[in-house]
């Protein structure tokens, strides 16, 4: 009997230590990156690019290059663009170059990724004032090093030109003269992928799907983002749970940054609307406005934290 019990115990132990049977959900899925074969643009991302390119051309700096950072999902063999971050209004740009990103885009990416932390850097879009529909040799030189840090060691690149043929009589609708091109009116975006080790960009087919540009709401407070990016980004790095939101302010949209406090339902909030910066202390259901003239957003938050710490 003892031997029988002992054998049963051994069998049970073996069952417990045996590797589970293979199933589709047996192990956490990790993405195996293959070369990008397709770039998927949401309709909103596509609209943003065409609308802002058109507005840029009509503006005072319309002769210069313009650019956007693209965030989205890097899937196995495709990239899905879900957010566009425009180059700053004080960008360094000219007829033959553009610096697309800076601290404003860093803060904007942090805000956009609050809702979906799967979003990653996919690549960039920039325009050429002439009709060069392909990234330049100078682009290749910089991008081939830069893409090494992207998921799959590969990036997505869009080139905007204003050389599409238009039929002025027709209702303007988008066209795809080639699988990697998208035109609307006189504007054209040509899309490419570049992988680590590639000697040149690959024309990459695009497709449209319904979906948002997750960075579109940020346009309403872009001026505030640009103006306070340095300090708000520093605050977000120092205070792990800072949350940003775009809300209706006194006269228009406002950018809120909220720092939760240790007590439940207690928080400090800074509301930025145009040049005005307001501070609030939220305690349970009560909201108190703090008077901190001339304080920058991070400085105001720390002054209030110090004040609250002194009361305990």
């Amino acid at each position, binding site marked *: 009997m003892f031997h029988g019990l002992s054998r049963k115990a051994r069998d049970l132990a073996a069952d417990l230590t045996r590797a589970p049977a293979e199933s*589709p*959900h*047996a*192990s*956490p*899925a*990790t*993405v195996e990156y293959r070369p990008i074969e397709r770039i998927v643009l949401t309709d909103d991302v596509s609209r943003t690019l065409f609308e802002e390119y058109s507005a840029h051309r009509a503006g005072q700096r319309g002769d210069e*290059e313009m*650019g956007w*950072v693209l*965030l989205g999902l890097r899937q196995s063999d495709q990239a899905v663009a879900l957010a566009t971050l425009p180059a700053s209004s004080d960008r360094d740009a000219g007829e*033959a*170059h*553009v*610096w*697309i*990103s800076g601290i404003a*885009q*860093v803060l904007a*990416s*942090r805000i956009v*990724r*609050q*809702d*979906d*932390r*799967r*979003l*990653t*850097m996919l690549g*960039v879009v*920039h325009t050429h004032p002439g009709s060069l529909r392909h*990234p*330049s040799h*100078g*682009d290749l*030189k*910089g*991008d081939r*090093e*830069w893409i090494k*840090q*992207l*998921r799959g060691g590969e990036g997505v690149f869009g080139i905007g030109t204003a050389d599409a043929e238009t039929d002025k009589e027709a209702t303007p609708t988008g066209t795809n003269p080639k699988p990697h091109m998208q035109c609307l009116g006189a504007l054209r975006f040509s899309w490419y992928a570049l992988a680590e080790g590639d000697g040149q960009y690959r024309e990459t087919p695009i497709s449209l799907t319904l979906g948002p540009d997750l960075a579109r709401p940020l346009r309403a407070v872009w001026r505030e983002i640009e103006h306070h990016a340095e300090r708000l980004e520093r605050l977000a790095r120092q205070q792990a749970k800072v*949350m940003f939101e775009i809300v209706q302010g006194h006269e228009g949209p406002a950018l809120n940054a909220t720092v939760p406090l240790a007590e*439940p*339902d207690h928080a400090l909030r800074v509301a930025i609307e145009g040049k005005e910066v307001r501070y609030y202390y939220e305690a349970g259901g009560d909201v108190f406005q703090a008077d901190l003239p001339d304080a920058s957003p991070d400085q105001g938050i720390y002054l209030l934290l110090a004040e609250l710490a002194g009361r305990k």
Partner: protein
Amino acid sequence: MDFRPLTETERRTLTTALRGNSDRGLALLMDRKDTSFAGTAEEVPDEEVINAIKSVPCHY
């Protein structure tokens, strides 16, 4: 233990993660200190995105 209700953002993140887990078997990460939800294996670290943005080269 903090039993406060989830914020809207936290709720959305958790729902997305649970959907990914049931649809595609994505791993849910757990905070080893208090077993709270700590994200999914699919999430991209802030530093990775920020470093990529900061280092975008000049385009011509």
